[in-house]
């Protein structure tokens, strides 16, 4: 078996593993569902996730230690992660191959020549890493983790989780019983498709020009013990070694070690055995490092250092926080959250109720594609016993909590439950408050005990087209002088007749001119002919007890005022940020 075949097998293996991990990130205990599959493994192998969060938090969370394996591989063998492991790289390689196959040699050589613009990715990396650094001092606040925007592993997870799988589901894959929605999916889809289709222009476009992980591994690969090179003897300068060169690293000339993705196509394509993979440098010489201009590097690094402080001048992590941004239960305080979230979409994928969505700019530019809750789009609110998202989060931007902590039980009873916000009744839209209609669906569905939503009973006199007066009364039936009522309209059990003297009896049936009451009138004196009667509706008007409300949003999800809901959760009183506390 040739080494190139081995590489292809490896790429297929990791691509299939990646897709499988995305599929099984489904809550449940069937074999194909989440039950111990290492679904974060590829994200953890991505050392950019580890290094960037190390810079922004000064810690390396749990499984991110796997990044060391990739670092070690790169230090010894070069960028094998790019050429052998990265599922996004495999997609690019396949598309790039489709784009250039059956083309003339000259066209293929042109496609795979080294371009100076390949330095761009290093500037991107420098910007991201300096933005992530947690600097001392209050005004700078903590670092902002932007790597996830372009880091290939989070990008490809996000794209498959939030675009490919929901579309496949609609086409009949059947991962979730109800179709999934993701707000702002178009932008994620557009970035993904652009990255994929640019391969038809230049193979591995993303890897060569954009990928910050490729840049990081490129810098590390300068120390690689074994590298690609060529010998002087045997080489005819035919340049066939560059025909299928994935990294555009110019193996025929002075090879650019930092660009080589270890595809090893050159080894196979050389007909004179002049290309080698060995410890000795290439006979034609090497560029160990990318050609970066000092000026360009300084511009990127200074922009990066300035990025977090400048973005935060808006006050979104301070007093100007966005109350419409509800983070999942267990999410860290906003600054710490932004220092960790890589926008991979794992929480959005696993959420059983599809309530976690990628943010647009609700959390500012740096919060793009971070998780936020949308109670309208999901299949329910945030189920208050569920802890799936935090247990999947690869960087603990959402902490891995246990049910006891979420519910404030047992050892957590002193702290109370985790609140993600508070529900507010919009009395201008709520049916019992504004429209004289009984409802209280919110109260019914409030899942905590005692319920955070309680009601107060009122009796409101309903509109009638004419005043109602008693004509005669016969035991439980009341005849009216007018015949203006809509038959049956006030027979629902929610309407009452208010009689002179304050006696109020439930109406069990009505015609245009008569009311049937729940029980006979006590006597004729209660209802003398001509005396006024009013029809009242019994309303239970909802109130929220902020002490009980955890912000789960089940009420908002269930509210029958479907457009702008009549009860809505905002991040007030969320426990992750003590500064957002609302009540004593």
């Amino acid at each position, binding site marked *: 078996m040739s080494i190139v075949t081995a590489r292809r097998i490896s790429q297929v293996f990791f691509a299939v593993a990646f897709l499988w991990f995305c599929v099984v990130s489904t*809550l449940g205990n069937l074999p194909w569902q989440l039950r111990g599959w290492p679904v974060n493994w590829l994200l953890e192998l991505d050392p950019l996730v580890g290094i960037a969060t190390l810079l922004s938090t000064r810690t390396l969370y749990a499984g991110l230690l796997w990044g060391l394996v990739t670092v070690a591989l790169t230090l010894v063998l070069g960028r094998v992660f790019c050429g052998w492991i990265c599922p996004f790289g495999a997609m690019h390689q396949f598309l790039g191959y489709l784009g250039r196959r059956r083309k003339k040699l000259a066209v293929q050589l042109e496609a795979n020549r080294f371009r100076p613009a390949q330095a761009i990715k290093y500037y991107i990396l420098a910007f991201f890493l300096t933005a992530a650094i947690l600097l001392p001092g209050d005004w700078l606040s903590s670092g902002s983790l932007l790597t996830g925007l372009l880091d290939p592993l989070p990008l490809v997870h996000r794209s498959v989780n939030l675009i490919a799988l929901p579309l496949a589901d609609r086409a009949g894959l059947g991962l979730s019983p109800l179709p999934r929605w993701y707000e702002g999916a178009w932008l994620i889809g557009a970035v993904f498709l652009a990255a994929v289709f640019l391969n038809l222009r230049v193979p591995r476009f993303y890897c060569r020009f954009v990928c910050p992980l490729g840049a990081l591994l490129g810098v590390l690969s300068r120390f690689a013990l074994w590298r690609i090179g060529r010998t002087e003897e045997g080489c005819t300068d035919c340049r066939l070694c560059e025909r299928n060169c994935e990294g555009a690293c110019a193996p025929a000339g002075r090879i650019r070690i930092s660009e080589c993705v270890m595809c090893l196509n050159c080894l196979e394509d050389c007909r004179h055995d002049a290309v080698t993979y060995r410890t000795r440098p290439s006979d034609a010489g090497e560029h160990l490092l990318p050609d970066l201009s000092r000026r360009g590097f300084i511009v990127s690094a200074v922009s990066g250092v300035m990025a977090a402080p400048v973005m935060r001048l808006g006050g979104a992590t301070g007093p100007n926080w966005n109350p419409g941004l509800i983070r999942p239960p267990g999410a860290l305080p906003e600054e710490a959250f932004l220092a960790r979230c890589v926008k991979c979409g794992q929480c959005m994928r696993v959420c*059983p109720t599809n309530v976690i969505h990628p943010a647009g700019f609700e959390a500012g530019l740096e919060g793009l594609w971070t998780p936020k809750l949308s109670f309208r789009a999901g299949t329910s609110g945030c*189920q208050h016993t569920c802890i799936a998202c935090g247990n999947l989060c690869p960087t603990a931007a959402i902490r891995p909590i246990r049910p006891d902590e979420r519910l404030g039980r047992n050892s957590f009873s002193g702290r109370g439950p985790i609140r993600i916000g508070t529900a507010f009744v919009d009395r201008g839209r709520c049916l019992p408050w504004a429209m004289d209609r009984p409802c209280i669906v919110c109260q*019914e569905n409030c899942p905590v*005990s005692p319920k955070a939503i309680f009601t107060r009973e009122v009796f409101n006199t309903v509109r009638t087209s004419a005043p109602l007066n008693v004509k005669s009364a016969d035991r439980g039936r009341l005849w009216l002088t007018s015949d203006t009522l809509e038959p049956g309209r006030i027979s629902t059990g929610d309407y009452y007749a208010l009689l002179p003297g304050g006696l109020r009896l439930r109406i069990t049936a009505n015609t245009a001119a008569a009311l049937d009451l729940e029980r006979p009138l006590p006597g004729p004196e209660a209802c003398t002919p001509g005396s006024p009667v009013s029809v009242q509706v019994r309303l239970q008007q909802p109130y929220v007890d902020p002490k009980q409300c955890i912000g789960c949003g089940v009420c908002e999800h269930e509210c029958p005022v479907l457009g702008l809901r009549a009860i809505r959760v905002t991040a007030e009183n969320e426990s992750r940020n003590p500064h957002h506390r609302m009540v004593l």
Partner: protein
Amino acid sequence: MPADEALSRREFLERAAKAGAGLAAAAAIAYATHDPAGPAPAAAEPPAAALPDFSIPGQGKKMCIAHGSERTRTVQLALQALGGIETFVRKGDRVLLKVNAAFASPPMLSATTHPDIVAELTRLCLKAGAASVAVTDNPINDPASCFALTGIGQAGRSAGAEVILPEERYFKPMTVKGAQLIRNWPVLMAPLAGVTKLIGIAPVKDHHRSGASMVMKNWYGLLGGRRNIFHQDIQTIIAELAGMVKPTLVVLDGTATMMTNGPTGGSLADLKETRTLIVGTDQVAVDAFGATLLGKTAADLPFIAKAEALGAGTADFRLLSPVEVSA
């Protein structure tokens, strides 16, 4: 062709023929697709339909009140008192159990149908020769979580039942004859296809809006769409549901009654041990008895009188001379 060269006759004819063909094709497409009236208004209501009648002719109205704290046992005793499961389920029957799986909450909180009843009824039906037993509901919370956390999914499957989680395509719009509310409304029809016996199983729960949630309210789970809108007239919708569904049997579980904070509950403090399980063929009578477990009377629950008026059953359960047994 150089710009100054005149068009030859042949070329002119060729071009004219191509242009003509293009024009003809465009005209043909336009003619075939021309829609002078524009889109029609929204589709009219489907014609009034009815669900099959799953009650057993000649069995009449019966009910049994079984006392005990072991649900498996009280279900068995109550059915024995009514003549055994064989009276209701025959060889080859396809049975559907309509449970209350509304919330993703554990069985001990009694917000949902207890898995023991699901398991025991499945077992009894299969023992009586039923060809299949299925379990379904359209819950309020996420369906997969609900069937998992309530234990109903596991209990049904291990006893040999198929558990059907609702999907959009399982619903069909339906108009119930004479109904005010269930008109052109999606109803969970697919699980009912081919079914010959229908058993409703619900717990006794406090319900702030309607007064109580029992077997009649449990049919709410057959509705799809944004069914919450019916809370504006909850008494009527419960009665209409009872009129729509004619079950073989209903089982009302008052082993523990949710006295407060219903219908979600969420705490053991919301429950009261009432050690009663009712099985009957008359859902109105069963609910009327169930009201007493909540400390209410049938008169406190307008949906009971409304359901009786629609012919769904008898509000005065004493008229059925219920059998009482104790475990």
